[in-house]
């Protein structure tokens, strides 16, 4: 089972849901923090980190002694990451998408592949729960390749729980694509609903079953419930606004560890997600 916790709008409670769900499932699960720009899951989990690896991507390196300044490298590059002016080859590392085109077309072998650091991936655990977290280098622009690297290291024998970045553009797609079920976390405000609709469009594009968690359920309006009904999106869990929950969050303390009853709530959430996923599979087979 691969499961992704996402949301259009930021700050709706993705990490809270992902961390508490993972803690409730314990050693059956692995939590992947794929919000690599601002990873927060470790703050709540406080895992033991056993390994941290630097993650790189390829960029071209030029050997000017072999270069004939023919300009074919610049011609194939759609990202303006390499240009040839007079007897110079300028490489703009940060613009490079690592497609390898320039190295492939270079007729003299003057280009080889070097690397640019994307960030790092940490591996750890907490009481049997496995943990992977990606952290993007400050100044790096591209989150998707790092997200894909975090996901590539997941243990397929465990329930994978992915904490996604906010939004609906390429980093979110990198975190969501290929999972069995998506949980969208929202709040019942106009901003929350507007961004939820965008997130639902993204999920539909990927054709993955999806349920909602409505956080701070008693602020705002009930329009989100009407929308959920209209769109046939099951509301898996509603969490009311509670100052005590907000304070625990501010201190980085998980609900399932601090307040009674929440472990059962999150185990039930998992059962409901599992059921939703199975129902979708049966529908596809039928």
């Amino acid at each position, binding site marked *: 089972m691969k499961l992704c916790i996402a949301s259009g709008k930021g700050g709706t409670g993705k990490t809270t849901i992902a961390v508490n769900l993972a803690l409730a499932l314990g050693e059956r699960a692995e939590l992947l923090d794929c919000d690599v720009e601002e990873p927060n899951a470790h703050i709540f989990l406080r895992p033991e980190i056993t390994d941290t690896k630097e993650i790189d991507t390829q960029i071209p390196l030029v050997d000017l002694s072999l270069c004939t300044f023919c300009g074919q490298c610049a011609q194939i590059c759609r990202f303006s990451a390499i240009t040839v002016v007079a007897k110079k080859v300028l490489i703009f590392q940060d613009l490079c998408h690592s497609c390898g085109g320039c190295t492939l077309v270079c007729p003299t072998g003057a280009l080889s592949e070097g690397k640019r650091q994307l960030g790092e991936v940490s591996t750890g655990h907490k009481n049997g729960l496995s943990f992977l977290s990606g952290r*993007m280098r400050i100044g790096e622009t591209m989150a998707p390749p790092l997200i894909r690297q975090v996901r590539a290291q997941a243990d397929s024998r465990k329930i994978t729980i992915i904490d996604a970045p906010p939004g609906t553009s390429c980093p979110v797609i990198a975190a969501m694509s290929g999972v069995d079920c998506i949980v969208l976390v929202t709040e019942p405000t106009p901003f929350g609903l507007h961004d939820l609709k965008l997130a639902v469009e993204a999920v539909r594009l990927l054709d993955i079953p999806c349920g909602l968690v409505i956080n701070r359920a008693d602020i705002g*309006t009930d329009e989100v419930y009407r929308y959920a009904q209209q769109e046939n999106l099951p509301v898996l869990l509603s969490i009311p606004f509670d100052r005590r929950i907000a304070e625990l969050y501010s201190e980085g303390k998980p609900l399932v560890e601090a307040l009674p009853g929440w472990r059962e709530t999150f185990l039930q959430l998992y059962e409901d997600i599992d059921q939703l996923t199975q129902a979708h599979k049966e529908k596809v087979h039928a």
Partner: protein
Amino acid sequence: MHEIVIISGKGGTGKTTLTAAFCALAADAVFCDADVDAADLHLLLQPTIKEQHEFIGGSKAVIVAERCNQCGVCRGLCRFAAISAELVVDQILCEGCGVCVDLCPEKAIDFPEQLCGHWFHSNTRFGPLVHARLGIAEENSGRLVHLVRKEALQLAEEENKKLIITDGPPGIGCPVIAAIGGASLLLVVVEPTLSGRHDLERVLDLAAHFKVPARLLINKYDLNADMAQAIEAAASERDVLCVGRIPFDPVFTRAMVQGQTIFEYAGAEERQQELRTIWTRVLAALPKDSEQCLTLKMYT
């Protein structure tokens, strides 16, 4: 010309709510929504769209079956695993690098340009707004952010406005980098939580990396006053001063539900007074040095 960009690192700290409040306060400014991925500012500013433009974000590969001899070279070349065993390009996975297009021995791959979103020139009750909508699952958000900021600047120059207020995206990646480069001042909205503090440090590292001055604004500070204190201290060690603290107050949500800024909502006088003071401090923090002012040149 000055541009204030409101960012947060962490999402959901109140960027857009506060940006809209400042739009209501600022006389004679141009507004810009640079959160093109999940744009919300229009929900409070309720713009009347004057012009709509297409955003062409790049091209994607399409294998044309009639010209394809199934050699599979393209699949071996693609670094993004976007080409299936049946030789169909997945339009979501395709990065638009064009390597398969150029190197297909049969020239069987087309590379049509993609409509990746739209951008708009609009009027609002507080002044002109430049905003955009990136298509779902699209790339190139940085380019679209760059585009709306450039358009806002051009408009400001044409209309002789002295200030641009820009609502920025969350995170520290490509759209944020595109949103802060060359800005006069960043206003970083943070909430008093451990996550907020962690994310603030990363976004301040980013601001320092691109040499953009920043100020701090703590929202919902009373949810954890000790944490608010610690965050303020940590920021001031980096010479990032705090322009104010706003308590948690459901009045912000109530105003949002009405589609209003806090300055139009009755019964929010205390918050209005605080925000007026904060806005005065933000304006006072703008660099006086004309070298730090924006010009269209930075976009050429």
